[in-house]
């Protein structure tokens, strides 16, 4: 096999197809971070005073914090004064389609996200975010008929201050961790979504995050509220240009799932992963957490193939009795990528249930860690958790690690944990080759089979995309 692998490795370019840059006039502020910068960001976003106060409070707290070092990651030093904290593609006022720069429209077309409602994927409403601003949110009027609010967080702060005040920071406070504090201070844009009582959202809601400007960090902030008995399925996607420099993406996503409501949150994360020698790529430090009230149901599904470094643990706080949390993850690393990802399931209410299915895939010289916490509080009678944590290794220069932690304070809890580690065997490849499949196709097929349980949780259109993505991201990895 060795000869063939070498050939494969030599012949394949980095296949990241979203690596282009949009040449568009951008309004950027100077590098660096200070109270003045935060005031400037807040002013640019025309925010009310209370929001600025919150930002400053978060910033002051952040200054007292230290970088977390517990993850199984080798993180080069990040100079937080060398980052541009606000970059906005110049456009005329928010509004009709005609006001959007054609170059921006073309960019999102190229990414497969048309901004015209009549061209969009059936059943999807999109909030398109480039660098620090939301460019366009589609189908707002259609959704508004049902009382659903779907807009950029910047707009929500101005238009729906009561909702934002009530929920923003309620699940992930600015004191939560280093990156959450940074985000609370400098966050630029992201989506806001509110589904009123008893309403089943008729469309898939999605946000597409794009980093374009050089030297910038993206600080996405997303807030989703499903009121009592409501239902919504939400999806986010992300890409960035191919660059030699590393760029920082530090996001916070908060979800509030009120009584008997259900939220499905899916991510296809495909930030630029760096080249095959580990140069460039996005540093992705993300805090995602949802709060479940009585009988609520929150399901996280993530397909993580991008970023040079991923640090991300979408979690569920199962506060209400009979609430349910789920986490389905495929995390794939290739070349020199590093990922430390997993989830926390915090059982507080009685009869709370959670399920974790994590599928790690490591190739090249990458390092891939699963980190999970299942905590059962004293009062969480009859809590149940099932965790399944699998690792697949491709080649012999990569690493797979698992750090599952169980912390139970209630004797009636039943917690199960299963784990496997496997390799793609020569026999499997030979078998596929003998049926006429190339080695690359065979690896793609085997990996997709391995990840199938998770992929199947994604909305149909994205499941197909995710399958392709897994195969593409693995190119050149056999060896």
């Amino acid at each position: 096999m060795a000869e063939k692998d070498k050939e494969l490795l030599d012949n394949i370019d980095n296949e990241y197809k979203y690596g282009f840059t949009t040449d568009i006039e951008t309004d950027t502020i100077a590098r660096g971070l200070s109270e003045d910068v935060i005031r400037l960001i807040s002013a640019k976003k025309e925010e009310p005073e209370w929001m600025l106060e919150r930002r400053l409070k978060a910033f002051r707290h952040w200054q007292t914090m230290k970088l977390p070092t517990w993850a199984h990651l080798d993180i080069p030093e990040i100079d937080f004064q060398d980052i541009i904290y606000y970059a906005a593609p110049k456009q005329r006022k928010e509004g009709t389609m005609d006001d959007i720069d054609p170059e921006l429209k073309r960019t999102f077309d190229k990414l497969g996200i048309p901004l015209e409602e009549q061209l969009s994927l059936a059943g999807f409403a999109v909030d398109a975010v480039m660098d620090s601003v939301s460019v366009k949110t589609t189908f707002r009027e259609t959704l508004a008929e049902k009382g659903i609010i779907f807009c950029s967080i910047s707009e929500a702060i101005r238009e729906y201050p009561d909702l934002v005040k009530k929920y923003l920071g309620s699940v992930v406070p600015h004191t939560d961790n280093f990156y959450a504090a940074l985000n609370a201070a400098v966050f630029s844009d992201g989506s806001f979504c509110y589904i009123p009582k008893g309403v089943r959202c008729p469309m898939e809601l999605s946000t597409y995050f794009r980093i374009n400007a050089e030297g910038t960090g993206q600080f996405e902030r997303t807030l989703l509220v499903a009121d009592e008995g409501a239902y919504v399925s939400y999806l986010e996607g992300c890409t960035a240009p191919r660059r030699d420099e590393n760029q920082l993406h530090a996001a916070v996503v908060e979800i509030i799932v009120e009584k008997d409501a259900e939220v499905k949150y899916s991510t296809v994360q495909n930030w630029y992963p760096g080249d095959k020698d580990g140069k460039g790529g996005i540093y992705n430090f993300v805090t995602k957490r949802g709060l479940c009230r009585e009988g609520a149901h929150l399901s996280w599904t993530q397909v993580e193939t991008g970023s040079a470094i991923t640090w991300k643990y979408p979690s569920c706080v199962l506060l209400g009795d009979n609430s349910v949390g789920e986490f389905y993850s495929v995390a794939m690393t290739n070349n020199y990528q590093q990922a430390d990802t997993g989830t926390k399931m915090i059982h507080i209410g009685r009869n709370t249930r959670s399920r974790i299915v994590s599928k790690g895939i490591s190739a090249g010289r990458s390092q891939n860690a699963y980190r999970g916490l299942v905590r059962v509080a004293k009062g969480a009678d009859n809590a149940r958790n099932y965790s399944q944590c699998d690792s697949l290794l491709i080649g012999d220069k990569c690493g797979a690690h698992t750090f599952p932690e169980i912390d139970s304070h209630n004797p009636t809890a039943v917690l199960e944990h299963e784990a496997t580690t496997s390799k793609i065997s020569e026999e499997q490849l030979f078998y596929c080759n003998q049926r006429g499949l190339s080695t690359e196709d065979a690896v793609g097929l085997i990996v997709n089979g391995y990840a199938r349980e998770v992929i199947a949780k994604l909305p149909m259109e994205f499941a197909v995309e995710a399958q392709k993505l897994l195969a593409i991201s693995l190119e050149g990895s056999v060896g």
Partner: protein
Amino acid sequence: MLSVKNLHASVGDKEILRGINLEVRPGEVHAIMGPNGSGKSTFASVLAGNEKFTVTSGSVEFMGQNLLDLSIEDRARMGLFLGFQYPVEIPGVTMANFMKMAVNEQRKFRGEDPLTAGEFLRLMREKSAVVELDSKLTSRAVNEGFSGGEKKKNEIFQMAMLDPKLAVLDETDSGLDIDALRIVATGVTKLHTSENATIVITHYQRLLDYIVPDYVHVLYKGQIIYSGDKSLALKLEKEGYDWLINQQEK
């Protein structure tokens, strides 16, 4: 169709095939028998291109081409099929999906358009009938949780789907009960035409009751030491290999 001349192959330092010669023409069925460790499975693997083995000398021509120069997948796409002694499991990949890729790779190689979903399903229904394969199996993951008999039926099902020029069946009869053996062997016979050829590797004459060979070869220590017609298999069944081996050692 297949012309093997003085083929030598080894794994590591150990030579396993030591000068095999074999001619296979369209329409023929060849049986290769021989005691354990004589190199039968290695021969099949080398034909298919398994890189565990190194060909040290000799030549193999297949359909007018130098087989040894071709990749495993190109050999397969040209119509060389290996029925595995131990079919491999591929979790999470459905048989249907696996076969769709395989069939379309072959079509692409021949410059044909891929099959539409409807055409493919029809083909699958038709071919699974050849080996009485439970149609539910095609929606299950490749060989995962299949019984021994199902796995072997599944190999012949794949052979039917791919319609090879030359099928090499490596101990397809091992581990089969008598009914499964009949179904598998009958399936192979149904697929046989004057255009294609089959090499069956087996320990037991019973398979050859169904798949009647034109030639029977005895492989011993990496060489074909004796060839005959179907009556040879019966003689071997009765008398074992000792008489041949003794003759050879002299």
